[in-house]
């Protein structure tokens, strides 16, 4: 079998979440965006005045910023943004009991494996459908210790002081065009508070689903991890396949306080008509550790660079990412680390697989401020190309203003080698099995860090389609 034909058989592009649920919502704004829509959203959420002001100001910032041209191709996005619904309200409130979630939405999530996930060892589960969290629950064991795991709206309503103290401070509205857009129209997302010294033994999980065609989802998540606390948050994202483009632009703000430890895992598996432009940032204080584990498998274009601002002495940031770019996909991903205190350490490991005309870009920043003595950073990016038409680029930006700091960068590009395939075939593996084994080996360092069900999912995604095979 010629190589081009057998990579066709790689099952990477088999998207099983593309089903459409019947449309249902209690309210939606008209397509496009203007001030009246921002006011509508705020009114529906019965927000305090300061939040409406915040939104309106953000809208102006958004309108004043040009479309970025440094990354993926956004030339069609302007038109898309005029056609999409910025706010779609699926039901009146966030339910605490799964039984109260409307049947059609419940069915959708059940098809996606939620709340089965909850019955497994999870501390809490949230589910966002269109623009709102339809369900949020936290095990009593953790609620009684003061852990908060709520929709972001309930966070604002029920914990206004701590909310206001942090909201918009880690990622300012004007950080970039899409953080400004999110600040204007945000809806849904999680509010997480882990009290001092509490160690969550099992992860919190949030699931994001877009069902509506021409929909924009703008979740906003704020996570505060108090001193010495530890937790892990997982988010998963899927959408139906439509011929028109959809848009997802989240803002995730995290504070990891002294001696605390936090991990944020994303498995983004949007359909291939989704623009996915997300801003994620953590401020990491003294001796604290922040870990981003970022899997980008779906979407049309993803631009996402999880960031760690290491502001306290001895803080550690780690960003591990895996990107898969199949035909028609561009994954422009990477990470940012900013060393702003002594003896801070960071590590970025980025792996990408490009198939057919898929394109993956590593884009990363490592900045060491003057005075961040004894800081160390290491960046490693490896790209695997499946076909001759596949593409990968590396854009590492390194700015070091401190002599007494160590920064390393290593980048490799490899193709699935003919000699590797020959060797494996020589042991009786078919070419498809051989290809899958090489790809699986390539992602193994990251796959082994994933929660089991996501590792299985990732492996399923790279499994080969074997004609006539059972199961």
């Amino acid at each position, binding site marked *: 079998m010629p190589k081009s034909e057998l990579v066709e058989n790689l099952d990477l592009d088999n998207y099983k979440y593309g089903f459409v649920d019947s449309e249902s919502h209690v309210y939606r704004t008209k397509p496009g965006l203007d001030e009246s829509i921002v006011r509508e959203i705020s009114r529906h959420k019965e927000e305090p005045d300061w939040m409406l002001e915040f939104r309106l100001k953000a809208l102006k910032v958004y309108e004043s910023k040009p479309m970025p041209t440094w990354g993926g191709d956004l030339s069609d996005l302007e038109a898309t943004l005029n056609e999409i619904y910025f706010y779609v309200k699926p039901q009146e409130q966030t339910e605490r009991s799964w039984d109260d979630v409307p049947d059609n939405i419940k069915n959708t999530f059940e098809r996606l494996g939620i709340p089965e996930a909850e019955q497994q060892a999870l501390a809490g589960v949230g589910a966002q459908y269109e623009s709102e969290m339809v369900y949020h629950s936290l095990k009593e064991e953790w609620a009684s210790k003061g852990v908060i795991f709520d929709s972001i709206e309930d966070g604002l309503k029920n914990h206004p002081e701590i909310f206001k103290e942090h909201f918009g401070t880690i990622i300012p509205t004007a950080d970039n065009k899409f953080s400004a857009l999110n600040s204007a129209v945000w809806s849904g997302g999680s509010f997480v508070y882990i009290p001092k010294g509490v160690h969550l033994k099992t992860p919190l999980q949030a699931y994001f689903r877009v069902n509506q065609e021409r929909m924009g989802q703008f979740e906003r998540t704020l996570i505060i991890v108090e001193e010495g606390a530890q937790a892990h948050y997982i988010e998963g994202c899927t959408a139906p396949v439509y011929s028109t483009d959809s848009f997802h632009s989240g803002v995730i703000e995290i504070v990891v306080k002294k001696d605390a430890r936090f991990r944020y895992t994303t498995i983004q598996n949007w359909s291939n008509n989704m623009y996915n432009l997300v801003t994620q940032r953590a401020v990491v204080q003294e001796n604290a550790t922040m870990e981003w584990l970022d899997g980008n498998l779906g979407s049309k274009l993803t631009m996402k660079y999880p960031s760690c601002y290491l502001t306290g002495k001895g803080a550690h940031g780690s960003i591990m990412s895996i990107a898969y770019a199949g035909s028609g996909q561009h994954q422009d991903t990477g990470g940012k680390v900013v060393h702003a205190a002594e003896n801070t350490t960071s590590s970025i490991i980025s792996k990408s697989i490009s198939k057919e005309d898929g394109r993956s870009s590593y884009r990363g920043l490592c900045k060491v401020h003057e005075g961040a003595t004894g800081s160390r950073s290491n960046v490693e990016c490896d790209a695997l190309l499946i076909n001759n038409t596949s593409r990968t680029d590396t854009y590492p930006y390194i700015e070091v203003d401190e002599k007494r700091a160590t920064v390393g960068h290593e980048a490799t590009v490899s193709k699935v080698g*003919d000699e590797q395939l020959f*060797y494996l*075939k*020589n*042991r009786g593996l078919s*070419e498809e099995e051989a290809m899958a084994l*090489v790809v699986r*080996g*390539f992602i193994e360092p990251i796959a082994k860090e994933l929660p089991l069900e996501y590792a299985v999912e990732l492996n399923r995604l790279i499994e080969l389609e074997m004609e006539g095979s*059972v199961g």
Partner: protein
Amino acid sequence: MSNAPALEIQGLSAKVADEDTAILKDLDLVLEPGQIHAIMGPNGSGKSTLGKVLSGHPSYQVTGGEVLYLGQSILDMEPDERALAGIFMAFQYPVEIPGVSIANFLRTAVQARLERGEELDLFDFQDQLLEAMELLEVEPSFAERPVNDGFSGGEKKRNEILQMAVLKPSLAIMDETDSGLDIDALQVVSKGVNTLHEQNPEMTILLITHYQRLLDYIKPDLVHVMVDGKIVRTGGPELALELEKQGYANWKVSS
């Protein structure tokens, strides 16, 4: 078919696929089941090419002749089909497969040998693997290491014979298995091959080697001298000793 030789090469000619120069020129060779043959020859004689052609390497093209394995032509078979039919090649330069453990790789290879729908018995597999590792004198943790990744020359060769022990081929082609081995590793590897041959006397082995040294440990039934793409002399093990003394210089005649 039961009387057919394990390997019968008739007038085989071959070249690198996108070049014109012939490397194998009208080569004949017959191995009966259970026999051990050694092919010796100077660098560039084409002996490694023979191994690659027999295992179906895509970079080489057969331009004439026939290769019969147990009476059946294998020239139209893919490398994996040849492997599943029982042909195994121990590579001179085993390839690294980062991130894939030896255990995982071998499990996939053993699974590939089962009937469709048949599930590998993991306990059986584990036993086979442990037994093979004991034979090759490697620690049990060896199987958890990624295939050949960061291995020393000796570890790579042990890994080749380890795979041979688990996959149990009926025809093993060993390409310069002795190269890069110190004397201790050579003894371990040779002992491994001899044990496998004792356990399965029907296993046929073709040793491709530059040096006589390997043949101190693995006793061939016949030794062939290959020069310029063909067998120029065949004899008993004493032929290897003769070569060791005289070198290959006398044989470089036809070119």
